[in-house]
């Protein structure tokens, strides 16, 4: 336990000093750090659900997209202040989780995966189609940055530290929830739903709360995305972006909360650097994804456990 705590402390300190120690900070803080934190929070919403419900969801971009579009439309076209639009957008994204969760939680495994993929693709086609609302393929551009207490978050460092703060708080919240009796009951449902039912637990509300909390994280990630990219278009909720998130979660390790951020950092670096070598970096990401799935399905976080298990197995075979 203390070892884990020490790890967290080291990672946090590194993250705090990162903008001051990195070479070429203009590039690496924005394209590396800030981007990784944004994608990491989005991936966290997926990892949380996978860890606690045993369900892999591609619907997270739906919640992100709902929240992101609401912020973008209300601030650019209706002059709504961020103080109002951001909480409203997060609320709307979270509430959309109630509707989607109500349907999606009736399914399991690969059905759930397909259904949530269809949900996200549905938002994509709506965003493309509803020109009057979303401006179709062009999307909504030049979204202003927020200014809080005189700090302009258009600058690289303030935005990085804002995102770091959000990521730390949400990560801690996920950890905390898993320790509560609610979190433990949730794990019970994941491992053996029938037994939990026979023990008198009402399973659906438990799952629903976890699903909606995950939608809440995804909505926050959606707003972060709007402020980081300063635009939103159907591609922000498209198939490629969904797969991007999935790659992050799987490469990092889908059964670990920290895997979301490990994967996000790795993919941010990979995508920033691979562009120097090849223009086909999406295909390169795809190959990386397939290789990880075939060789190390537990991702980077799980690689030590995987090796240990293999050694134990080999030792057992020899004995």
């Amino acid at each position, binding site marked *: 336990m203390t070892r884990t705590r020490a790890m967290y402390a080291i990672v946090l300190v590194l993250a705090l000093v990162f903008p001051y120690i990195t070479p070429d900070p203009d590039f690496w803080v924005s394209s590396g750090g800030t981007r990784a934190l944004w994608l990491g929070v989005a991936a966290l919403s997926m990892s949380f659900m996978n860890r606690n419900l045993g369900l892999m969801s591609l619907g997270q971009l739906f919640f992100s997209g709902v929240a992101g579009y609401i912020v973008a439309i209300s601030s650019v076209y209706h002059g709504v202040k961020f103080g109002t639009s951001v909480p409203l957008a997060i609320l709307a994204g979270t509430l959309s989780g109630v509707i989607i969760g109500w349907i999606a939680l009736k399914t399991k495994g*690969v*059905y759930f995966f397909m259904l949530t993929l269809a949900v996200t693709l549905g938002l994509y086609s709506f965003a493309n189609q509803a020109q009057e609302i979303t401006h179709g393929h062009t999307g909504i551009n030049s979204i202003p940055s927020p200014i809080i207490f005189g700090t302009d978050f258009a600058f690289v460092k303030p935005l990085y530290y804002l995102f770091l703060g959000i990521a730390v708080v949400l990560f801690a919240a996920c950890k905390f929830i898993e320790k509560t009796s609610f979190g433990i009951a949730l794990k019970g449902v994941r491992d053996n739903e029938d037994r939990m039912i026979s023990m008198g637990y009402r399973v659906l509300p438990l799952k629903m709360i976890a699903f909606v909390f995950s939608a809440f994280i995804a909505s926050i990630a959606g707003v972060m995305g709007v402020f980081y990219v300063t635009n939103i278009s159907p591609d922000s909720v498209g198939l490629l972006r969904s*797969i991007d998130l999935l790659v992050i979660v799987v490469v990092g390790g889908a059964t670990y909360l920290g895997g979301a951020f490990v994967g996000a950092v790795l993919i941010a670096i990979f995508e920033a650097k691979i562009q120097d070598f090849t223009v086909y970096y999406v295909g390169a990401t795809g190959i990386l994804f*397939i290789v990880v799935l075939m060789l190390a399905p537990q991702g980077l976080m799980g690689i030590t456990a995987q090796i240990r298990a293999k050694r134990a197995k080999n030792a057992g075979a020899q004995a």
Partner: protein
Amino acid sequence: MWVQVGVPVRGDAMTQFIFTFLNGITLAGLYFLVASGLTLIFGLMRVINLAHGAFYLLAGYISWTVADKTDNWFFGAVAGALSLGVIGTLIYVLLLRKFQYEELRVALITLGVSLVLAQAMLAIFGGEYYQTNIPDSLQFTIPVPGLGLSYPFFRIFVLLLAVIVAIGLWIFISKTRYGAIIRAGVDDTTMVSALGINVQAVFIWIFFLGSVLVGFAGAVGGTTNSFGMGTDGDYLLFSLQVVIIGGLGSIGGVAIGSILVGVIGQYAVGYFPTFAGIITFTMLILILAFRPQGILGKKQ
């Protein structure tokens, strides 16, 4: 793009209504051809191929190229279907077979495959849109009774193809010895192997057949509609909607799902263009609210 361009609808309300229906029902034929391969492979092997949209698009490009070079639409269609059969089988043997019983892992790998294929197609064919020419022998219109107007025969032809494929698949699976082996292999692989049947070979043939179907669909769909970058995602969405609504693994379910998504989708596009996506989507949510396994799906 989402909006499926059928035959332009002009004239009075009645004409518009009937033409929208014709566009919808012929589009349903195309959806059936696309989604039947997906549901066939899943129904018999529990493997969900999320590179299905990429397969469709790849077949479109291949058959366009061959049709363009040989000046013969039918060669193009056969080339598209067969080459996808081979590519699909290779992907199954090399990447998926080892993990066949881990449904989610297989689904994820096929998503990775779709990324790689999408990038390769973009590199080769660029971002422009293509459309294969309708063969001269099928390039004519037939009159619509009672309206004094005519409708392109090729779209009716697509619907006919879908009906033929549907009947063929149904006979193959439920009436032939091969179909019986396949159904038995799914229910109890070990027992069927013990009877001296090579189940692995059966699975390879199913994957081949499913990929040939989507390859053929790509050739046909690439003639009725234009295709290009992004078409893979669109058709993956259509296929998912169709099989989720109809019930995954059921050929009859695909037929019902195709008709619902095709016809209702076209009416939505024709009458409420802004909300067309939402309307189809609401239909999907409503059906799942009452039948999570889809209209003809088996209980999970």
